[in-house]
């Protein structure tokens, strides 16, 4: 019986002109955004490559100078965008594009695209992912709001009942048939997206896997909307009331929930201002962490330890450069303090992200949005992974320059020199983005929320079938 219902629903939906018109309209919008987004991602990749290469060349061709002075020239590193970022740029517009690595201080990324956007962007951004997570559910609502109530209004439900219809088979058959028809209409867009991304970025296996997971997640997400829409259509007596309810739900899920979640997250777990953040780091470096003593005390202790280690009476007698050693010691301490504060801040970002999911009580869109960003590698977790790798690289090249400085000077001299061979010997920053398994681990909470919504939607669908009367 359910097979017949699926078959009937599939073909009826395809024959319904609404699906074709709405599907084609959305296809045009989707392809438009995807093209624009793909070009933007390609352009960003090219820019990052070009700027990175120029910066490296400038680093390599520095004149003969003190290695520490060379280190102060700094190195720019860039987070590579996955091809999936063309579908969902995630946090890219709000996070900087490059990270400047310099001695003594850890930085945030610079140059966020949203700062360069036109005035129109302040009224909300339209992206490919917006089409996928906001507009397509609206298409589902438009297609399904009357799927059962219309049967009631037209009398077919009475006919079906008279034949001993199994109402569970009816509602679940409708769900499967509708999703099948919807997937068929959506498939040209998906195929086009895949071919475009393959052509533009030469997709890696992991990127292909991420795309597959993203597609699967979106199908799950659409199934939630479809199941809820059919349940509402069965529950409410008229199509008009059903449509009103579903539009309210869509608004709550797509627009109100995320904003509500963000407001609550900021209220319950606020971030420090930039001024407070940097002041706290400076204070901890100056005064020291938990009994470490202040800056002066730590330096005195280090000097004493160094003199004892090399069995000399003064800094000037040291066989290695004291200035560099002392700087390395202070940098090490500074890095520890920076790591503490950065981790605390990023932990709070994650806490806020989790708290934001409270907004998911109004609908699954927030969790889907978050999952989509994670699978695209454009979320906080991937950003943190990149920043940690960049910080490790910062330690590497700063320590390397300090090693040259220390080894090429004695006592309190400041005359160590480095040359182009030294600069060229610094290894390039080679970053391997985490794989899709990492993404799935980071998205556990989003997956739990989506699964909970799916189960709730299916339960409601089943309950609505029980009270389905002509």
């Amino acid at each position: 019986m359910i097979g017949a219902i699926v078959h009937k629903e599939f073909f009826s939906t395809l024959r319904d002109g609404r699906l074709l018109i709405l599907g084609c309209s959305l296809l045009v919008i989707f392809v438009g955004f995807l093209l624009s987004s793909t070009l933007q991602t390609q352009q960003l990749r090219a820019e990052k490559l070009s700027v990175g290469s120029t910066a490296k060349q400038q680093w390599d061709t520095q004149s003969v100078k003190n290695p520490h002075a060379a280190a102060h020239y700094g190195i720019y590193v860039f987070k590579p965008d996955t091809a999936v970022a063309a579908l969902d740029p995630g946090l890219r517009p709000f996070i900087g594009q490059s990270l400047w690595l310099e001695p003594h201080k850890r930085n945030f990324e610079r140059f966020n695209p949203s700062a360069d956007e036109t005035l129109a962007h302040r009224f909300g951004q339209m992206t490919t992912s917006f089409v996928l997570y906001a507009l397509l559910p609206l298409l589902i609502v438009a297609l399904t709001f009357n799927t059962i109530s219309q049967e009631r209004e037209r009398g077919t439900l009475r006919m079906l009942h008279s034949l001993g219809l199994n109402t569970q088979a009816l509602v679940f058959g409708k769900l499967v048939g509708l999703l099948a028809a919807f997937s068929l209409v959506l498939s040209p867009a998906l195929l086009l997206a895949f071919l475009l991304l393959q052509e533009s970025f030469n997709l890696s296996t992991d990127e292909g896997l991420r795309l597959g997971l993203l597609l699967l997640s979106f199908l799950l997400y659409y199934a939630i909307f479809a199941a809820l829409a059919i349940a509402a259509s069965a529950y409410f007596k008229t199509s008009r009331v059903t449509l009103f309810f579903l539009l309210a739900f869509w608004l709550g899920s797509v627009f109100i929930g995320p904003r509500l979640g963000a407001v609550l997250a900021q209220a319950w777990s606020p971030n420090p201002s930039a001024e407070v953040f940097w002041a706290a780091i400076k204070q901890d470096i100056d005064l020291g962490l938990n009994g470490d003593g202040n800056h002066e005390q730590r330096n005195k202790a280090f000097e004493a330890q160094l003199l004892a280690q090399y069995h000399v009476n003064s800094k000037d007698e040291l066989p290695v450069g004291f200035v560099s050693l002392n700087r390395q010691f202070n940098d090490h301490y500074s890095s520890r303090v920076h790591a503490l504060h950065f981790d605390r801040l990023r932990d709070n970002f994650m806490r806020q992200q989790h708290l934001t999911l409270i907004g998911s009580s109004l609908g699954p869109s927030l969790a889907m949005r978050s999952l989509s960003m994670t699978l695209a590698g454009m979320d906080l977790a991937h950003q943190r992974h990149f920043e940690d790798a960049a910080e490790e690289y910062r330690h590497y090249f700063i320590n390397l320059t300090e090693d040259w400085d220390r080894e090429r000077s004695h006592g309190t001299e400041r005359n160590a020199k480095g040359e182009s061979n030294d600069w060229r010997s610094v290894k390039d920053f080679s970053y391997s983005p985490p794989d899709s398994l990492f993404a799935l681990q980071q998205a556990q909470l989003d997956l739990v929320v989506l699964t909970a919504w799916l189960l709730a939607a299916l339960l409601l669908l089943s309950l609505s079938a029980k009270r389905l009367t002509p």
Partner: protein
Amino acid sequence: MPIIEVNHVTKEYQLGHITSLKENVVNSYRRLVGKPIHKREDFKALDDVSFSIEQGEVVGIIGHNGAGKSTTISTFLTFNRPTSGEVLIEGLSAHEHSAIVRAKIAYLPENVALYELMTGVENLTFFCTLADINISTELARQLLTDSGLQADAHVKRVGSYSKGMRQKVGLAIATAKNAKAMLLDEPTSGLDPSAANDFAGRIRAAADLGMAVLMATHDLFNAKQVADRIGIMKQGRLVEEFDAKTVQHDELEHKYLAHARGLA
């Protein structure tokens, strides 16, 4: 054994305790100003109705709106449960053996509701599949033809069908089900005289093949033409029953109007 039986069926709706917010507000106001409050009355949609229909027999039930004709038919389809009494098909209670009973029943409402985006053949095949009857496209076409639907309409979408054509698809479903009993709710309402006459002939033919038919209608002419017996319902009660062959049309009309006007 009769195919269709209605045994002392009463269907009572107790509405006295149901009040809406609006009614509560209005009644509060009326109490305040000393006026009598509005109260919903309990009412009986069916009041101790009993009759039976043998194999090959057609019984027409006539009566004005709200007399209980459709409620009687709905009871067989378990759309409502009687407060007391029971309805039976071939001796089986419709409520206790609903799945078996539904398999024995064909139901044709006033407007046979079909899926507009599907063709006549597709509708017939779909409804038959839901009734656990697998029919081939060829058989579906044959059934539609036998029900009087022209061949070129078989593959047209039902959205373009007239009411009479839909009734024919409904008849084809009933035939495909090989139903023992047919329940018709205002089947000729809205049909032109020629189509109504044709439909009446097909009902009679179905009965002659052994089907028991219960037909609720306003159409006295049609009832007299098709039925073996005619019953008049009024306020949920079966108040009179005639042999359709012996009763004169004028007499039937007179009785019907007398009950409708409260003169009988």
